[in-house]
């Protein structure tokens, strides 16, 4: 999702049966960077629509039965999640705060006032971007740790088998990786798998 000023359009999928609210929201967001596509009743077509449309944001009434259709969407396409904003007629700020903590990106309480809704959507888009960035950071840290782990395993095995020092074992891994034209991580992975198979099948030989 790019956010370089008012020129980048943000596609919003609005799922709502309340025609009045749809019109109000369309008016409120007219001539803004939000481009509204509307869908009404709960049909399986909703999943296809989201696939086709790839909206940047989904807005739905918290009381809509279609929320469960979206639940399958967020679990199926975990790798490409969407920020979801909810309408609610509940004005209680505590409820809204705790809903946001419970995983909903943002709440729009009560009726759609053009002065209020834009900043809410802006905040939802921005906070979702931040959360996503944090998640990605966590994932890459996890991957980096796994990478270190497999290299350490291979190194340790070489040290024990060949009676090498740690720097020598690492140098050996690096040379083997370069000779076979692959990364140290990939080489270490294949070695670990190979040694595992060897020790499992050792009795048959």
């Amino acid at each position, binding site marked *: 999702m790019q956010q370089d000023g008012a020129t980048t359009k943000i596609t919003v999928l609005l799922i709502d049966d309340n025609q009045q609210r749809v019109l109000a929201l369309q008016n409120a967001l007219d001539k803004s960077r939000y481009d509204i596509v509307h869908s009404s009743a709960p049909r399986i077509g909703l999943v296809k629509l989201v696939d086709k449309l790839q909206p940047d944001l989904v807005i739905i009434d918290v009381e809509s039965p279609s929320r*469960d259709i979206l*639940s399958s969407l967020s679990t199926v396409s975990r790798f490409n999640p969407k920020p979801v904003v909810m309408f609610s007629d509940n004005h209680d700020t505590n409820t809204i705060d705790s809903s946001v903590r*419970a995983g909903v990106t943002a709440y729009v309480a009560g009726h759609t006032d053009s002065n209020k809704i834009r900043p809410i959507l802006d905040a939802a888009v921005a906070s979702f971007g931040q959360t996503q960035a944090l998640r990605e950071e966590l994932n890459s840290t996890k991957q980096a740790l796994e990478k270190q782990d497999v290299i350490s395993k291979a190194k340790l095995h070489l040290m024990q088998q060949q009676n090498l020092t740690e720097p020598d074992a690492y140098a050996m891994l690096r040379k083997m990786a370069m000779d076979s034209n692959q990364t140290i991580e990939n080489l270490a992975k294949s070695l670990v798998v190979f040694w595992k198979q060897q020790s499992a099948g050792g009795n048959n030989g």
Partner: protein
Amino acid sequence: MADKLKIGYLGLNDAAPIIMAKELGIYSNFDLDVHLVRQNSWSTLRDRLHMGDIHAAHMLAPMPLASSLGLGCDSTDIFTPLVLSLNGNAITLSTTLLDEIKICNELDEVSLPLDASLLNNVISRRQSQNKDKLRLAHVFPFSCHYYQLLDWLKRGGINHHDIDFHVLPPRDMHFNLNNHIIDGYCVGGPWNAQAVRQGTGVTVATSCDIWGDAAEKVLGIHYDTYSSQPDVFQRLINALLEACDWLDTPAHRFDASVVLASSDYLNAPLDAVCPSLMGICLTQLGATSRDLPNYNIFGNRNNKLNIPNVVDAHTFATYMYSQHYIEALPSEQYLSHIYRSDLISKIALDLD
């Protein structure tokens, strides 16, 4: 003064213990002032429970685990001390699909429960004609309905990749079936009987046929809410057990159906609500029904079936694992902290 509690439920037959405890004044007998709130989706019911907006909820049995693991939501400490109902789901196919099954297999009649392997020829025919995959709906990504559909298909040797699965709200299932948007679904009552009454669906297998007696709905509670007043929740569990016992008497089932069908609760036709609660599975309009005394049960006299168990929890975890939602199976200790078997035993001892 009675303690106030808000309980969320979905408009389904198996909400009966939660609803009847209110109607029969059982909550009041346990000094509880319970306010029931009907919800339109499992997702919103879950979010409300997570945020403490409702204090307890009628939940799909795999949901407390999904909440704890943070699947489709932020990880939240939800647990269950009580199984509210067992069985009650069924697979209903469109009459159009049933005709297709008969034609493709050169059969005049099919026997029930339907053997899913009969779908093989339908799938091949649709593939050779470049038609859409069969579309089957269930109610939630983490539901017994979905797992029962998968099991039924697997036993018939059907590859689940040959099926297009969808999530739909229970109340919208028959609309989508009537309009040929889906070919079949797995849902709880009254939405199977309703499609049969309308002549558009055929109920071909029930969850009892697929899983035997299995937990279907549980009482979900947030650990934080529970810890603040455990004695109130013990009384709630007691009250619900009494409602389950009341429902165990066949003579009470019709009275319960009348209450459930009313606009205060399910707002559904009585002739659709009643059959499964009376142990009858309607199959097809004009055809003989099946007698299934355990079609909808709410535990038994000694309440053994109301005790959550780790074996069920492990089954749910295995599905989540095989569908790559989790990277490893949770330990038995982890599961028994979510599916608590000790709270009912404690009560049973108190009552003795």
